[in-house]
């Protein structure tokens, strides 16, 4: 079933996005004219083979990289036009990230990792701690709050990463291959947590993945190949 835009407002509007890596011997065309709209509350997956442009697309949407051409507008703000410092600021307040390699800060405990991002936002300590603990509880890790990442399993670390991504109450969460390093059971449990958050809080999730377990849960599958969207379908 082809994806049909609902009546809701698109929170992410991607227009004619091109990305060419020309700092290599042979220029690589990673994105070749991508147009997409992501609406609030979506639980969508960008899928495609390795090198298809998934991660590049996610990086540009998250303001981590610049497009060669085209634009990304998030709730009326053209993030691709913002200067570097403003983009960092924008990411801090509006976008949550979950990475394949968890990327927790190794010297901080699970709770501190979640609280850290709230501190960057300048939130008071009581609020940071209360929200940090609540989120760890939501991902089932309240009893591991004082453990450092090295003391947690991969799945537990990724749950902390999800809690961290949610901490700032972002507009949406970008998750780049979040289950790639997890076993089936852990991946399923993590996906359940994210799906529940999506339902309960209408949190928008945009995954880049080639994990069939994620695709199974996703309600929209955007297939990308050679830097173009080749299929975009809604699932019931």
């Amino acid at each position: 079933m082809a994806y049909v835009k609902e009546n809701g407002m698109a929170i992410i509007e991607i227009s004619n996005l091109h990305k060419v890596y020309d700092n290599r011997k042979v220029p690589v065309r990673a994105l070749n004219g991508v147009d997409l709209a992501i609406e609030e509350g979506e639980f969508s997956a960008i899928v495609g083979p390795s090198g298809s442009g998934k991660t590049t697309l996610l990086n540009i949407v998250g303001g981590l990289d610049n497009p060669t051409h085209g634009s990304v507008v998030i709730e009326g703000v053209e993030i691709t036009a913002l200067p570097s410092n403003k983009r960092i600021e924008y990411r801090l307040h509006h976008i949550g990230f979950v990475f394949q390699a968890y990327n927790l800060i190794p010297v901080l405990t699970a709770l501190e990792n979640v609280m850290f991002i709230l501190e960057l936002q300048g939130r008071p300590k009581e609020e940071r701690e209360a929200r940090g603990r609540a989120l760890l509880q939501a991902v089932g890790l309240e009893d591991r709050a004082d453990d450092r990442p090295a003391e947690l399993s991969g799945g537990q670390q990724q749950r902390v990463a999800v809690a961290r991504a949610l901490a700032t109450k972002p507009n949406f969460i970008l998750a780049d291959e979040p289950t790639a390093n997890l076993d089936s059971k852990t991946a399923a449990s993590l996906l359940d947590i994210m799906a529940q958050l999506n339902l309960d809080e209408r949190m928008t999730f945009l995954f880049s993945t080639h994990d069939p377990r994620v695709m199974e849960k996703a309600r929209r599958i955007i297939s990308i190949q050679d830097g173009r969207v080749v299929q975009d379908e809604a699932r019931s």
Partner: protein
Amino acid sequence: MLAVIAWRNIWRNKLRSGIVIAAIALGILGGLFSIAFMEGLADQTLKTAISQQVSHIQLHHPLFLENEELKYRLHNADGILAQLLHRADVAAAARRYRVRAMASTANGSSGIEILGIDPENEKKVTTVYEKLIAGAYFADNRRNPVLVGAKLADKLKVRLGQKIVLTAQSEEGTLTGGAFKIIGIFKTDNSLFDENQIFVDYRDISRLLDLPRNESHEIAVLLKNPQELALATQSLAAQFPDEKVENWREIAPELGMLQGYMQQMMFIFLVIILIALAFGIVNTMLMAVIERTRELGLLMALGMSRKRVFAMIILETVFLSLLGGVIGMALSAVVIQYSNHRGIDLAIVGEGMSAMGYATYIYPRLAIAYFAILTVMVIVTAILSSFFPAHKALKLRPTEAIRVE
């Protein structure tokens, strides 16, 4: 939390941080101890010179110091002495005749300077009486006693109790000589002094050269408070306008220069320490930044501003250098205090040192201010040298963080 992260980051590589901290601490210890040693050397040399030779202030006939002619005397030496001893800022004062002469024995002769002193008063001003290695300090009333330095005694091959002949030119130009009996041999830290100066009773030299007993060439003054040197010099110059009043800085400018020289050496030492420190810190922090490329990129990806990343690297550097600095300064304080208490005997190189007029027993000391100055300088150097690695960190791209190797 930035400070917490910075602090914990330091301890991620305990060995590396430990080595840097030890290097900073040992560098500071080496530097501060060298400075304290030089301060002690300058201080001791100055103290020795003041206590054995020049005192704080000297009064002369205005022309005496130009060529030390016998005729340029303080004509009212007794009166001046009495007035000096009445002053509240004067601890002691002593008269001296100073006469260039030849000391001879059967074994040879040597050019020397006779100091014709009042033994009792001289004891209050200079400490030569403490430096006797043989004999006694003008203890008996024998005629023509003399104290000679060990170096001169060796040179003239004379021993305690033997006689030397002192020959000098009288005011009229005739050569006059007299036999003096060695009643004491002194040995100071300054072998030049020991070779060139001899002490006789001023009454004996005045009789030998027909000099008035109530006059002198020099009056040496010891102050109660050496810090008031300039003020006391001014005041004495006003009180005795006909005489030349000079303090040790004017009489022996080389002593003042020694202090200046030591201060310059201290500055050079400090610069060397700080440069070594800077290179150590740049190297360590650069490694820390390169190792954590991914993590620093992640922090920026999450929304940590470049300013904060920069501040975090600087904070890590400040913590490292503060730790090294505090340990180094504590170690220095202990070592300097201990060596100040015990003193350092430079017996091995003492001969060369004392031939140049330096003290051979050193009590290293360092003003608290130097510790404070060095603390500030270490931190400032650390911050400055962390700019390069911190700047390097800012050039990282956040996409590095989410790229999976």
